[in-house]
């Protein structure tokens, strides 16, 4: 009888949780993840191998382009359209969002700089506000919030273009903070233990620990040397 009443209460709690606890990610966040999946799928390789490469290439291209413009533009002439801030544009927004995304595999994700965090929040807020009006309109970049470059005197214009490049470069290179804690369950510690087991010839035990690690940390990369050593030992016969 008491059990039945408890079940009824639990169901009521579950219903309350379902109703009141219903939250979902912002449209901007969805877009970032979809773009990442799409790019990863197209590149045909896991994005955690060189997570900084895309951002680095974008920043390099921007720096070279700005240098060319500054060298070639006659005094007093406005810069080309392509360097003016674009209030909306899928490609620019996607690129900026990717640059601002935390680097995969780094524990520094949770300790990113205050500026980057603020910029991300700004983009998310603008994104969610924009999503109400139209799902297709991406959030404007931080640079787009400033007055147009064309309206500024030449010196300020050059400084502004430099700022845009610096901002993008800063978003590429988030500082990597050291790990704060290392526990027994830390995957790197477990990998070290597997290596030690292999060196001691405890192959079966190493295999078991590795299986456990894969179960616990499915996203963690296993060094090829360990996989190879275990495969080799399998061929030689199990201990």
């Amino acid at each position, binding site marked *: 009888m008491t059990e039945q009443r408890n079940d009824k209460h639990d169901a009521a709690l579950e219903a309350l949780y379902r109703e009141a606890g219903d939250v979902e990610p912002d449209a901007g966040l969805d877009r970032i993840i979809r773009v990442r999946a799409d790019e990863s799928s197209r590149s045909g390789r896991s994005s955690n191998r060189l997570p900084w490469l895309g951002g680095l290439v974008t920043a390099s291209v921007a720096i070279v382009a700005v240098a060319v413009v500054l060298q070639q533009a006659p005094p007093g002439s406005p810069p080309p359209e392509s360097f003016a801030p674009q209030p909306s544009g899928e490609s620019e927004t996607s690129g900026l969002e990717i640059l601002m995304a935390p680097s995969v595999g780094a524990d520094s994700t*949770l300790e990113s700089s205050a500026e980057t965090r603020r910029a991300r929040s700004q983009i998310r807020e603008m994104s969610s506000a924009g999503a109400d009006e139209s799902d297709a309109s991406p959030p404007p970049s931080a640079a787009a919030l400033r007055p147009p470059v064309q309206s500024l005197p030449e010196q300020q214009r050059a400084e502004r273009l430099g700022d845009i490049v610096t901002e993008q470069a800063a978003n590429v290179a988030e500082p990597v903070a050291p790990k704060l804690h290392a526990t027994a369950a830390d995957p790197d510690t477990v990998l070290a233990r597997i290596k030690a087991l292999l060196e001691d010839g405890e192959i079966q035990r190493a295999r078991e620990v590795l299986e456990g690690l894969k179960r616990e940390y499915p996203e963690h990369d296993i060094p090829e040397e360990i996989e190879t050593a275990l495969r080799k030992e399998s061929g030689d016969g199990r201990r």
Partner: protein
Amino acid sequence: MTDPRTDDDLMLAFGAGASDAFEVLYERYRKPLYRYLYHAVGDKTAADDLYQDAWSRIIASREKFRRGNGFKRWAFRIAHNRLVDHWRVLGRRPGMDAEALETAPDDAGRVPEEMLYRDQQAERLHAALMQLPIEQRDAFLLQQEAGLSLADIAERERVGKETIKSRLRYAVGKLKAILEPGPEAAGK
């Protein structure tokens, strides 16, 4: 129309390069994974970061996924690992999250009146979850969002099944005490 493919089929297809498979999978899991992380940390900014990081790792690890891993368990395992890292960085101080909740701006005045009650309920639930110890909250959310069994949660937390059972009992008891009307109000 609902895609008839299983989660594992979709993940394997995505691993082989089919981005449309990811789209279906993402639609299925975006809300449960977000709810799990959001209610666990109680802070939108942190939840957004963790959510983005968890999906990035799912995407990056797609080639490691094997049939039989069970996508749901696998994905929630990755999200759970991110959460553990988050708590580790915070030094396991759930009180910080509760404080953040209390100081969150109250924008109830800006929403239509009919939404007010639901918002208040959501706020109460959120505050109630934040009052639970991390272990109890996590066990409750893994059960609600990932649909994990006691044995699964116990294995994940490296504790006995009875411990999880007890954590869930305490969690549900506390949530009920906070959220539901007292025995007098219930007519007992």
